[in-house]
């Protein structure tokens, strides 16, 4: 079965939003106390995720999304995107 643009888009969203959920609600809240047993430097790991780590991951997630979607756009809509560029010029 061949997936269309929208279906692949939904898979990308599902994948990235699960990372989003795990690093914030997971590591930062639900399992935060368990992770606190591990330390790196002066940070307890769960505390670090809730006040630092989750935010770094958020930034990363958006840029991975930008990269994947640009590739997907090119694959499916190469012509219309080229014409948009031309139109802009």
């Amino acid at each position, binding site marked *: 079965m061949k997936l269309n*643009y*929208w279906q692949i*888009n939904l898979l990308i*969203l599902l994948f*990235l*939003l699960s990372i*989003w959920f795990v690093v*914030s*609600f997971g590591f*930062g*809240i*639900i399992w*935060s*106390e368990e992770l*606190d047993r591990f330390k790196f*430097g*002066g*940070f*307890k790991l769960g*505390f*670090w995720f*809730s*006040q*630092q780590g*989750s*935010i*770094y991951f*958020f*930034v990363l*997630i*958006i*840029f991975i*999304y*930008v990269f994947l*979607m*640009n590739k997907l*756009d090119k694959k499916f*809509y190469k012509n*219309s*995107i080229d014409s*948009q560029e031309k139109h*802009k010029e």
Partner: protein
Amino acid sequence: MSLQALTYLFVGISFAVYIGIAIWSRAQSTNDFYIAGKGVSPIANGMATAADWMSAASFISMAGLIAFLGKDGSVYLMGWTGGYVLLALLLAPYLRKFGKYTVPDFIGTRYYSKAARLVAIICLIFISFTYVAGQMRGVGIVFSRFLEVDINTGVIIGMCIVFFYAVLGGMKGITYTQVAQYCVLIFAYLVPAIFISLMITNNPIPQIGFGDKVIGSSTYLLDKLDQVSLDLGFNAYTEYSKSNIDIFFITAALMFGTAGLPHVVVRFFTVPKVSDARKSAGYALVFIALLYTTAPAVATFAKINFINSVQEVEYKQAPNWFKNWEDIGLIAWKDKNNDGIINYSNGNALEGVKPNYIDKEGDYGERATINNPDLSNSNEIYIDNDIMVLANPEIAQLPNWVIALVAAGALAAALSTAAGLLLVISASISHDLMKKILMPKITEKQELFFARCAAAAAIIIAGLFGIYPPGFVAQVVAFAFGLAASTIFPALFLGIFYKRLNKEGAIAGMISGLIATSSYITYFKFISPQLNIAKNWLFGISPEGFGFFGMIINFCIALIVSNFYSKPPKEIYQMIDEIRKP
């Protein structure tokens, strides 16, 4: 130069820059006025979004709040950044593709209904005014402390500046001014943070520094703070004190609320292409993260510095900043045991919490209050969290130019957010209410005129909020996010991802989300605040986190009601297919 002269200089230069930009980039058409002619580059839009987003609350209050709450404060850090992931992945590209001017515009068109548009306008105006009220208070505080003018004069100066560039420049003027304001505010936030990080841990990067060892000792800063907090009767700084479910719901409500805030959503209408909207959300979060990852470090440093400089110090020896902030009314000392020494610990210092000052000096020269001391604990200090950031450079004894810089930064943060909010309010009135509902025949020129009038009226109302600050500002912030999460986010999200949703479903969903969230918050915050404790809450969810529950209600009702009515018309299916393409 004296502190005051320096502050005038910094604030004066930054204001001159904002006005210069406004004249250079004034709006010519409604397209310019609402969405800056769709010509903003993704990086500039990212900076403008960041400045728009980071308000007086982020700049002035957040670090203080985290210092006070410890790990519980993480809800703000994760909530106010994680929302951008939702925005970038679920909303921004599609709304940009849709390409119209406002959030009610999308809702009104997608659900082919004036009623839906009207519900969206009401939510939007309520959310935006709630927010503006807080900004103007921030402007007032900064002016009264650092420029030593009357709070009212300060608010009026702020209003004039915003009036000038919002009314003249519209979205275009605001966007480029916000780029400048971002640079000012981030510089003003990072400089003192780096200074203090170096002083306490000898590490120039605050994000790493607050996990480092205190200079000249082998204890980690956070471990020391945990210990000190426990000694003073607080919870350990690095542990949650609220229940997991409450933390979960508050974080979720703030995230989904962020993604549904109209003044943030509308920023992604201004970029040239769909792919730019995605990229722009990424840049925005980078610029925001710079401040949001510094804030917990600032909180940690400020808390330890504050405790070190007041705990068990004789009042007569108290540092100057203590007395300055007493004069502003954000700190108070009640000598419970009559020893002339300041004791800081957990609990309220005063009965009724907030100080009521009288025109008299106490036994040791402190600013006296008529409140009775709260004798259930030994804490003698009332402190407003807001001063943690503003007083931080003074507490750490940094040079005067750093303190002046912080004042300019705080003003940049407050003004940029106020301007962005005023613009969404004016656009929703002139475009959605006048043009699309009440007077569809007006020309573009008349519409632009209405937009400018609406912006001017909104500024005056916002100014009145600043001069006569309503006591409920802090309480209604939960409201703004709760409503954005339970009304606007679901309507936008389902509008894009679920074609079958018809107008009946969407309207029923928005109204039930609105009623559920606002009645829960109103009940606990205004009607019977004495019952606002964990054991009375539904499933242990505090009013701050209830917006997420309201969102779930919205989803359920929308999907159920939708199935009882006919499918949306063919054109809507085509429109959704169209916005799903890049």
